[in-house]
């Protein structure tokens, strides 16, 4: 993708800037929730988001779902959830992109609303991953499984990225720890977070290895929970119960290849997704007040910081030192605690926190005067990435 092509693409997407808004967000309790199921959590989250938006279920004519890792019906989840909610949508479907799903579904909802295919779309996720037996330990590789060589589990892919980043750029485990420390500090200010006890770099270094170079405290949680995000037109959002949060920029990019692509480990498609979101919004990294960056593992935050242009390639290790990504720092990141400490909702709570920050509902962890938030997601074997620039409604760009 040349800069010129990206500019032309952005011109087309530019017409969607600020056309749609997130009007409702809902989340269930998080953590270990015995007795819950993917379906019960999805339904509870939907109800919470409706209440938040001040909407009735009859206002919702679009339903997009992510089956997570524990829905027995898999890709037919939209039918199962739809039946439970008793709605007959104009627009529906399910998508499975792991941590890339939340952003992809919200962007699909926004384009459906902007095109007129639906007026109000609920994007719904539930997963009983903690108590329901998740599938996060599976091996990747079509055909001959990488499991033949013991290459399995989600941490391994990020460990590969961390190993190479460390070798090329001198990034250290203590720098990765800065991400875990920041997320935990933020979670300590979030009453809904699962892990709230502050940690230090020394705690991180003393935690056991999972897949070296990643320690336990480099890894996200595994959680039960549900999240719902409701998207409607910016116009309709004016009358909603909550201050509207506009979708100003959207971008996605994927690589279906892994071993065939030499730079796969560095997830360069993330930069394309971000460049698309920035171009649509007419913004750049200098315009971002707060960021919710997908953190399945600490190294992922470092890579996002580089691709998003907050620092140069290879310089994210030093960048995160000195509290720069903590509240009060230059760029607060994952202000609710992220996947690492709030709960592992595969990035769905990153969108919720972005919305809360832009509404000014962050409480103790509110970034004062936040008007723009970057939200990113990434899933599967580093394949699927997306980015959104969310902005506070009623503020001229």
């Amino acid at each position, binding site marked *: 993708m040349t800069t010129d092509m990206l500019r032309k693409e952005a011109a087309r997407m530019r017409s969607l800037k600020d056309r749609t808004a997130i009007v409702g967000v809902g989340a269930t309790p998080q953590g270990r929730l015995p007795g819950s199921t993917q379906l019960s959590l999805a339904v509870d989250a939907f109800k919470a988001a409706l209440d938040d938006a001040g909407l009735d279920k009859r206002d919702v004519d679009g339903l997009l779902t992510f089956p997570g890792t524990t829905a027995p019906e898999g890709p037919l989840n939209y039918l199962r959830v739809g039946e439970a909610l008793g709605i007959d949508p104009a627009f529906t479907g399910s998508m499975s992109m792991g941590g890339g799903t939340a952003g992809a579904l919200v962007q699909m909802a926004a384009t459906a609303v902007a095109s007129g295919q639906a007026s109000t779309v609920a994007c719904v996720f539930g997963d009983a991953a903690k108590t329901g037996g998740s599938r996060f330990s599976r091996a990747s*590789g079509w*055909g*001959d499984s990488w*499991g033949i060589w013991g290459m399995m589990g989600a941490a391994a892919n990020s460990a590969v990225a961390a190993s190479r980043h460390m070798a090329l750029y001198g990034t250290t485990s203590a720098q990765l720890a800065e991400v875990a420390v920041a997320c935990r500090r933020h979670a300590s200010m979030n009453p809904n977070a699962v892990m709230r006890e502050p940690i230090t770099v020394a705690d991180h270094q003393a935690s056991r290895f*999972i897949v070296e170079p990643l320690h336990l405290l480099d890894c996200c949680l595994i959680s039960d929970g549900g999240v719902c995000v409701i998207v409607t037109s910016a116009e309709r959002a004016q009358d909603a119960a909550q201050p509207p949060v506009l979708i100003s920029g959207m971008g996605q990019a994927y690589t279906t290849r892994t*071993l065939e692509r030499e730079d796969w480990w560095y997830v360069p498609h993330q930069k394309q997704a971000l460049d698309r979101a920035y171009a649509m919004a007419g913004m750049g990294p200098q315009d971002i007040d707060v960021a919710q960056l997908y953190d399945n593992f600490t190294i992922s935050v470092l890579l996002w910081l580089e691709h998003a242009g907050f620092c140069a390639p290879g310089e994210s290790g030093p960048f995160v030192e000195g509290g720069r990504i903590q509240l009060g720092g230059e760029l607060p990141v994952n202000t609710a605690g992220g996947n690492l400490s709030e709960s592992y909702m595969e990035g769905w709570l990153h969108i919720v926190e972005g919305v809360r920050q832009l509404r000014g509902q962050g409480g103790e962890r509110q970034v004062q005067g936040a008007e723009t938030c970057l939200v990113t997601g990434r899933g599967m074997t580093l394949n699927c990435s997306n980015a959104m620039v969310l902005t506070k409604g009623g503020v001229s760009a």
Partner: protein
Amino acid sequence: MSDHSKPLPEISDENRPFWEGTRREQLLLQRCARCGHLRYPISHVCPECLEAGHEWVPVSGRGEVYSSIVFHQVYHPAFADDVPYNVSLVQLDEGPRMFSNVVGVPPGQVKVGDRVRVVFDPVNEEVTVPRFTPEHP
């Protein structure tokens, strides 16, 4: 090691030449009959030009460690006695990359950039798994 309960390749027409090759202690990869692209993972079609025709060609089995990690967590019970074990992404001299294990050295001593060569590990009567070891121990 007939009780090997680790994941094993499911031999099919598509991957049979690869696994027959390793039993003869040869590392064979597919070269596209149309564009010449040497590919891995194994696929029925070239990901560059979509040509199905290909030949299996021997490669040197030499390369360097592109990334190296050490498993401490047991994700599959059959690996319980193996941890900590090394998994490396190996950059073959001929171009393709493959995941494998660097063996013959402590797992944490394997570094990015280390030169390695293939070794063949017969895990049962049917399957010989290619692994790697330092070229100059």
